[in-house]
């Protein structure tokens, strides 16, 4: 097989670095691409549930018109008590996601080009964009925005955790912490809206986080460089071959 059949016409050179552990390319009647492992998905949904619960309980204490949301948590006292603990769970859960995802979310030169073509992105005109690896610049923005905001939120959240940490701060410090916490919370809710909207707008994306795989067409359309890397190399170097994979996926 020649290089051009492998990569297609005018295809950019691809690197094995585009592939994450667990990513696989399968060909049957359909082309199926494994995108997220079971553990990555579990990790994601734990984080997602925490984030939603935090947003609901946080908003309940942010504005009186939303105080009724405390009923979901068993009243005001329970909401106040449970919110920081959910935050702690989210922090550790997100740390797991960070470790899993950060390598392929590191910014690259072609991310700037992608961002410059944001108009084409919004039009869904992806042929005009540079070929995208596992994550595009928008996804990377969501990843890093979440990472930074979660660090800010956990830090300021601990500072205003009345029960355990209030005594370590002066009142002026606590005022700043609560203001920063609320602004960061608004920002992360906006990032979350972008994240959820994008996952819904780009059809068949959710499947990556539910079943763990995407269609070949989806990968070709949205993450072509990633698909090319999988086509060329199949998996990352450090992974053991077939023997360790789930039995159902093995074929003799």
């Amino acid at each position, binding site marked *: *097989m020649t290089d051009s059949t*492998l990569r*297609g016409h005018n295809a950019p050179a691809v690197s094995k670095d585009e592939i994450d552990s667990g990513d696989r*390319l*399968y*060909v*049957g009647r*359909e*082309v*199926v691409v494994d995108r997220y492992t079971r553990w990555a998905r579990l990790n994601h949904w734990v984080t997602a549930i925490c984030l939603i619960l935090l947003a609901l309980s946080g908003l309940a*204490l*942010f*504005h*009186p018109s939303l*105080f009724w949301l*405390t009923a979901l948590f068993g*009243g*005001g*006292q329970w909401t*106040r*008590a449970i919110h920081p603990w959910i935050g702690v769970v989210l922090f550790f859960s997100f740390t797991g996601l960070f470790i899993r995802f950060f390598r392929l979310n590191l910014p690259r030169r072609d991310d700037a080009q992608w961002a410059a073509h944001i108009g084409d992105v*919004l039009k*869904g005109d992806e042929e005009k964009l540079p070929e995208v690896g596992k994550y595009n610049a928008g996804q990377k923005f969501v990843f890093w925005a979440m990472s930074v905001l979660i660090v800010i939120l956990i830090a300021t959240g601990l500072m*205003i955790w*009345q*029960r355990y940490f*209030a005594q370590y701060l002066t*009142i*002026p410090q*606590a*005022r*700043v912490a*609560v*203001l920063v916490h*609320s*602004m960061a919370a*608004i920002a992360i*809710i*906006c990032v979350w*809206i*972008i994240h959820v*909207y994008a996952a*819904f*707008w*780009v059809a*068949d994306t959710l499947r990556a986080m539910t079943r763990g795989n995407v*269609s*070949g*067409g*989806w*990968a*070709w359309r949205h993450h072509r460089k990633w*698909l*090319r890397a*999988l086509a060329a190399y*199949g*998996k990352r170097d450090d992974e053991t071959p077939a023997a360790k994979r789930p039995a*159902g*996926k093995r*074929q003799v």
Partner: protein
Amino acid sequence: MTINVNPPVAPDVEMQMGPQDYIRRSASSVPEPTRQLEPVAKLIDVSKCIGCKACQSACLEWNDLHEEVGFNTGVYDNPHDLTPDTFTLMRFTEWVNPETENLEWLIRKDGCMHCADPGCLKACPAPGAIVQYSNGVVDFIHENCIGCGYCVKGCPFDIPRISKVDNRAYKCTLCSDRIAVGQGPACAKACPTKAIVFGTKEEMKAHAAERIEDLKSRGYDKAGLYDPEGVGGTHVMYVLHHADKPSIYANLPDNPRISPVVEAWKGVTRYAGFAVMGLAAVAGMLHMAVSGRNRVTVEDDEQARRLAENAPGAEPLDPGKEPLS
């Protein structure tokens, strides 16, 4: 002044203040009250205070508070700070007057100032946990308190304390339960020198004016009333012999006001926050309406198949596991 009025003996005393007199209620609104109670005030004349702590004892007794036995660290303040069980505290300061070189023993009875513009109430997220009556009393309604500590951040005077026992905020009530039946606060009742007096705010200001005049005649040129404008005035006022520098009295704020940080948190952050979050959601919906969903085309699928079919990295898919898409 009600200070020396004995308790009424009538069997059923009419409550003189109640929820119908709320002018503010935290995180909620109240109907316009049908009457305006006469504003009241407690006046604390620091120049008359002898530091006996009778007010502290009376406060503990009336409010049925049980402070822990503390430790002597060589200062008179006991306990060392306000606590959920200590609503009022004598704070002692040894101050050398730079003009006279005299050591002055400044004693200030610390506690809630009952601000006309209460920062605690502004910061409180729990509906009805903090209320303000039309006579000026600011009170915590403990059953509505959620223990978040926002009132601590809102208060310009560092007064509220959150109990570790029941996770609720506590502070001086101005003895609202006594005022409601025509009594003065327990501290005022107990004060042996009448350094603490209670009455209508007008009476207290007039009384303070007399006291200030007397102090000035005795060499305290800067004597004055502490009724700070920045919080709209207070319903606990001090007569200070050095009213030009309140902070010498155990850090009584010179110009108290609700912190601009708290104002920003409770004001612009809310409106801007909802606007930005709403905008993000609306932008999403509009985008969806205008451009429709970004769907994979047949062409994309065929291209992927062409790439994958003979690719070295591809593995065959078990047809039994293949999803129907």
